């Protein structure tokens, strides 16, 4: 039964993924991607990693929303009003990705995967938390630092005007001078 559900969900995930590049509107593509992610999240839940599955759902939904905002902001073609093909080297991409799939799927069946050892604990999520706080703490600290780096560089790249533009080279303006009034700090 699980196998059937897994197979169906998998088919949904792959087909929705394929649809991302088939539909001719960015908005639809975004939705397809979300569907694919949701299907995978469901499979993760099916596999017993409930927490990660739901986390995926949450994160991906938000991410797709951001992506939508992003498109509205910059891409000028938010709802696929102007259908257009934005592909290049389709044939080459097809050959390479098909080849990759071939190699991978042959590998999937050729390899004798290790047999299962052990059983999932009763509370997987608790164990996960313990591992994150214990053995993998340093990893998480590093990822945290990476988040800091992401914030710093992300803000640096996206902000059109930095603090010296707004408050002057000496940072001595009382209030920032912005072309559009009402920004942060007003």
């Amino acid at each position, binding site marked *: 039964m699980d196998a059937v559900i897994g197979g169906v969900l998998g088919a949904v995930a792959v087909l929705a993924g394929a649809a991302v590049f088939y539909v001719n509107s960015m908005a639809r593509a975004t939705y397809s991607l979300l569907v694919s992610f949701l299907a995978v999240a469901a499979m993760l839940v099916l596999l017993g990693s409930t927490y990660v599955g739901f986390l995926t759902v949450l994160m991906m939904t938000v991410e797709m929303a951001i992506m939508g905002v992003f498109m509205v902001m910059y891409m000028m073609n938010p709802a696929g009003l102007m259908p257009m093909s934005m592909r290049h080297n389709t044939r080459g991409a097809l050959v390479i990705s098909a080849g990759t799939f071939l190699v991978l799927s042959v590998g999937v069946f050729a390899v004798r995967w290790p047999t299962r050892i052990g059983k999932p604990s009763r509370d997987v999520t608790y164990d996960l938390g313990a591992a994150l706080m214990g053995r993998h703490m340093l990893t998480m600290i590093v990822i945290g630092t990476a988040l800091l780096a992401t914030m*710093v560089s992300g803000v*640096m790249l996206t902000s059109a005007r930095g603090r010296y533009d707004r408050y002057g080279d000496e940072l001595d303006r009382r209030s920032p001078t912005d072309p559009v009034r009402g920004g942060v700090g007003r």
Partner: protein
Amino acid sequence: MNEKPLALLPELFLLGGAIGGLLLGVFLPRRRQYIVRIVAALALTGSVVTALLGARNLDGEVFSGAYNVDMGTSIARVVAATAALLLLAIASTELSGHPRETELYTLLLLGTLGTVLLAGADDLLFLVAAYLLASIPLYGLAALAKDGSGTESALKYYLMGAFFGIVLFTGTVVLYGVGRSTRYSDLVGSLAAAPRGAVALGGIGVLAGLLFKLGAVPAHFWVPDVAEGATTTVAAFVTTVPKVGAVLAIYRLIDVPLSHAPGNWRLIVAILAAATMTLGNLAAFFQDSVRRLLGYSTISQAGYLLMVPVVAGRNDLALPSLALYVSAYAVTNAGAFAVVAAARTGPKLADWRGMSRRSPALSLALLVCLLGLVGTPPTGVFVGKLTVFTAVAQGGYGWLVVVAAVNTVASLFYYLRWLAPVFRAPEDKGAAVSFSWSTRAAVTVAALSVAVGLGAGVVIAAVSG
């Protein structure tokens, strides 16, 4: 649980410097951001000093085997931080007073931290995290100037990085799948009995991610573009510092988890090394842009660096030779970029014509650095190359040494293409380059590259223990 926070003091210096600098910089006037530079320099110095002190008494695995404070990590700590320190000198001339100077230093320190962590990673998960930390700041740095070429280079850098990041995840997941763990200490045993095909996929994936950081074939495409597009400081940084961590991480990967795994991994690395150095050299041959030329040159240098992991753990000379080469390379490459930054000349080789008249000191520094990159004695790279060649020959990869030697000769050609106009009489009397602070810095770095060669004995003795 063997959490020894003090064992990570050098890393904490870097992190502290980054955070402290950032907080400080927010309140500093634009012209006085040099204070952040001083903070960064102090942090880096502290990191180097504590790393040197720590190298005397290595702590080994810390934090449940995620991180390994061994000689390799110590090398990365010292070399990466020292290189970053040298690059601060370039930054001080190029980007002093820049509106995003504070962010520059913060990201430099974070990138350096990421590199160091990459070198010390003893767990695939940690490796992924370190990869992230070593990459993210650099994407931002590449676009620091926010000009057309800078952002383009950042875009390419980022997209390549993202792609190879996913390849790295893939490898990690597959190795985890067949090895039942992500810790190197577990993988040594479990991968030995693992199915060949899966290990091949996983190993290639992880290796590919590190090759991206190293700037080696087939993940080298970003290197020339970033070298040309980004500011000089950043170009120098991304072609110098990440290589330190990447090559040590590859070394560890070959030495530990893949040492008994199916597949001839040493041969793969050897092939990659040969391909990388050859491609880098060939592409540099008729390059007219100085920065791109340097970019390709760093690709070929990555190839030479990659030679050492081929014999990782095979003989006593492997790690010392890597230490020597990587430190010499870092200094020399930084020196070359420092000269470029100080010369303030056009982007083409032809623009360098007559530089020897305009600034003899700078020309001499360039000579030392470029010949150093070739491996002319007595610069550090020579001794590094020599010991690397020796170690690799000792490990039974004589053909790789021959390939490297031939490549070295070939590389001479394009370095000379640069040097030739420098020492030719100028067509018109260009303005003399003043003997400024930046010139002095370039000359100092060049001198340092010779000093590494002359003091090679000390380095080897320190690394050999």
